[in-house]
């Protein structure tokens, strides 16, 4: 394809929207509808891939769409961090669509057309967010993402789904309206601009105290980053069907949160200003607290998806921690973790969904001996767990490595200790599951001992993403090259 990079950016936002329209039109013909989803996803990924080359060359495509108010426009700009996020989200959408088809059909879910439509809109929002050129565009992507995923969370339309949806929407809207929006307006007022710029826009404009307050507003305001005490929405969102939890609550939505945090730290505050003013220091400890506390909560959860949700809360705090270290190594570690955790966590959720589809089990304690019945699923689970813990030869190793170097750069040895403790906690709560599956004897005796995997469309994607975790260890160059492009600028 020979698009101008700027038009390719616009296309990345419009493609999923057009896809959503087509999907809605095809609601009478499920096969056609699913084909449209897959084609859209593939086209989007191909389109995003065309942008990688220019970005690696140091080009930053820029496109001002429209001015909403004088000086305040919808602007798309692509820089390496956003490129990374756009790639992860669009790439995993393909895998996830395949999985969704297997899962939704396997479980005979209702309202499937609405499901795929909302999914496509959510992806458009993700692309908008990834390519946002200023805080306003970012906020728009952020809010569209919130509203488009609400119907997905309440997909089952029963009382439980409604209650979960209320918490989901309540927390996310509360934080974004009450904290994020005023923070953005304050930046607009204080700095006179809300564009993302290298080195930030706030340097020399605000006192360290104001900067500290603003940074706190941004971090808490980004409810999707799930810093405690605003993490409740994530476990609540687990009432959704598993493919939703997989893509949205392991990849798109939560990564949108931490991506926002990273982008604000880098391009609004600027890492130099952030470390000199000490604005990030208080939030560093909030992240550390969230990291440890969420791990401990995860330990106590028996419901598999709830445990994974708290694990996500904890892992997101790694990325926030990376941004709060205010060193380029820390941010790079956080960004790498964005990729590594996305691959690992989507695998884990795929596995949880596969177990539910095949065996209708939701609790960890029911999984004794299941590994022998579903070897592929549990094998993938093991691989992904190791990646998230950060053990070689899995991709997660690199992000832990970079984060620890970043902490060392910042001279915070205590953070090193925290990361080590957290890895131990990860081992306990994640590895328990494959251990039960493979090592414990089956609970009920009547099992015939044969292999009973979930449908192929469910199992293939999870094997693929698990393989991705391994590949990321041996071949992290693409991600590292993007991060280098960013660090050199």
């Amino acid at each position, binding site marked *: 394809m020979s698009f101008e990079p700027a038009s390719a950016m616009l296309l990345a936002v419009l493609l999923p929207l057009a896809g959503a329209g087509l999907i809605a039109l095809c609601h009478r013909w499920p096969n056609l509808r699913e084909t449209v989803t897959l084609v859209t996803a593939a086209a989007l990924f191909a389109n995003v891939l065309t942008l990688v080359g220019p970005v690696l060359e140091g080009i930053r495509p820029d496109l001002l769409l429209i001015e909403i*108010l*004088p000086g305040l426009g919808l602007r798309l700009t692509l820089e390496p961090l956003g490129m990374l996020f756009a790639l992860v989200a669009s790439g995993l959408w393909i895998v996830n669509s395949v999985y969704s088809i297997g899962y939704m059909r396997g479980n005979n879910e209702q309202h499937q057309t609405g499901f795929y439509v909302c999914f496509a809109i959510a992806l458009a929002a993700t692309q908008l967010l990834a390519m946002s050129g200023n805080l306003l565009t970012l906020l728009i992507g952020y809010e569209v993402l919130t509203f488009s995923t609400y119907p997905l969370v309440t997909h089952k339309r029963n009382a439980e789904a409604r209650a979960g949806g209320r918490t989901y929407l309540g927390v996310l809207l509360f934080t974004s309206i009450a904290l994020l929006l005023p923070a953005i307006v304050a930046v607009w007022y204080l700095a006179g601009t809300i564009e993302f710029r290298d080195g930030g826009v706030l340097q020399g404009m605000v006192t360290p105290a104001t900067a500290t307050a603003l940074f706190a507003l941004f971090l808490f305001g980004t409810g999707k980053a799930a810093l405690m005490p605003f993490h409740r929405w994530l476990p609540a969102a687990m009432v959704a069907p598993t493919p939703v939890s997989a893509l949205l609550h392991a990849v798109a939505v939560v990564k949108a949160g931490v991506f926002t945090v990273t982008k604000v730290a880098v391009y609004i505050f600027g890492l130099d200003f952030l470390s000199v003013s000490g604005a990030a220091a208080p939030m560093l400890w909030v992240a550390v607290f969230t990291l440890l506390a969420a791990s401990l909560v995860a330990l106590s959860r028996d419901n598999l998806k709830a445990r994974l949700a708290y694990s996500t809360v904890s892992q997101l705090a790694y990325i926030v921690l990376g941004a709060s270290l205010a060193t380029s190594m820390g941010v790079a570690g956080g960004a790498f973790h964005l990729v590594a955790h996305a691959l690992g966590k989507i695998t884990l959720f795929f596995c949880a969904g596969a177990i539910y589809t095949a065996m209708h089990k939701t609790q960890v304690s029911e999984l004794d001996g299941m590994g022998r019945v579903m070897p592929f699923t549990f094998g993938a689970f093991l691989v992904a767990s190791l990646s998230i813990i950060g053990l070689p030869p899995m991709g997660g190793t690199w992000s832990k490595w970079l984060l620890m170097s970043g902490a060392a750069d910042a001279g915070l040895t205590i953070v090193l200790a925290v990361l080590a403790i957290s890895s131990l906690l990860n081992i306990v709560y994640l590895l328990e599951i494959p251990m039960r599956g493979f090592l414990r004897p089956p609970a009920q005796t009547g099992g015939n001992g044969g292999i009973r995997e979930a449908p192929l469309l469910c199992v293939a994607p999870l094997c693929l993403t698990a393989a991705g975790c391994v590949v990321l260890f041996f071949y992290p160059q693409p991600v590292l090259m993007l991060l280098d492009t960013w660090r050199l600028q």
Partner: protein
Amino acid sequence: MTGLALLLEQLPALQVVLPLLAAPVCVLLRRPNLVWALSCLTSLGCLGIALTLARQIYPHGVISYAMGGWAPPFGIEYRLDELSVFMLVVVSLAASLVLIGARQSIQREIPADRIHLLYAAVLLMLTGSLGIISTGDAFNLFVFLEIASLSTYALVAMGRQRRALVAAFQYLVLGTIGGTFILIGVGLLYMMTGTLNMQDMAERLPPVLHTTTALAALAFLVIGAALKLALLPLHIWLPNAYTFAPSMISALLAAISTKVAAYVLIRFVYGIYDLRWSGLNLPLNDVLALLAVAAMLFASYVAVRQQEVKRLLAWSSLAQIGYIVLGLSLATSAGLAASTLHILNHAVIKAGLFVAVAAVLFRQGGSTLQLADLAGLSRGMPWTTAAIIAGGLGLIGVPLTAGFVSKWALLQALIESGTWLYVAALLASSLLAVIYVWRIIEACTASTGDRDIQRREAPLGLQLSIWALVAMNLYLGINSSPGMRLATEASGRLLAPTAGVPL
């Protein structure tokens, strides 16, 4: 001089005269469809005139038109500045968009032998509203205000339930008190300045500002305007009036009546007086701001607890009026511009919601709509539901809707003046808006359970009106630059300091 140029010169008068002449024609025509078409054409004509005037004013500045050829300050002056044209466009636009869809809904809710009277009253209300906005004469303003109000009382009384009559009566009593207060204020001002021309008043007031009379006049004017505006605690007439009026009339009221009253308040406190005058020894800014904050929080809270959709929307309107008053109470250019912009944005959003409710009522029958009645709406009337959701998101102030732009402007103005408590109040009110909007949306998407409710989409006319308003809502959320520029110029002109008066 060619005929066209002659006509162009008479436009300021023409846009008031046009609906005034059309009203008796309505009474004579009597045929419902014909009358409806005439009303639509008239309001569209007013919209055309308003837009033409806006284009004249934009490069050339204020238009002064001497009514009947008597030169101001002796004759009645029609004086159009940026704020007036802005309001002219808002009012005629809202009226046109609502009236286009009104035909079927009105036919269903009003007995056939009264339809022509209803449209005549609507046109009179339009006359009054446009007159208020264009006149430069304080007494003339009072007269137009009463013309608009009287026709509004009659419109409310046409509601289907008998409670509409009581609501109209309550509105009449309070509205008349408000109007009379304005009359007293104008009289006192005339005593002090010897003129009725508002521009003249503004110039002659500063030397006599220290007198009790001048202060009393301001108090009467503000309270009178606040009564018409339904600013808390003078709001008790509004929820009933909106709830029991015919559905399309609720849309008109929400879009026009209170907005014009807001314009009147702005004229009084910045056009005649200026809240920033240091000689004005009154903490009026703070009082207005506190009442606005009270309205934003209390009315939103009450809205959260409502079960009836129109009443819920009415309380939400009261909260939104709080936003408008909060912006203008700041006495800064940014604040006043934010208020002005919100007048437009809220008119569009709320009219859209009320028309959507009218569409639901058209299919459902009855004159009130409980939240529980909405169950299954997303299945039977998906487009109307989508419009309700779009309007609701506008009320919350979600990005890409008009509501976001006004909230952004207002937040910016508040932060600029360093009033952090008001910022907190605005955000708290938005959060309450999330709750009440979400109650509607949840009700629309709720399953009907065992009951089988058959619904079809509303007829084309209503849909057209709904979607025109929703499209406006979204358009203003994406491109508010022209509106904002006009609002900023309007507030700039109002706040331009009068020569020789200390601020």
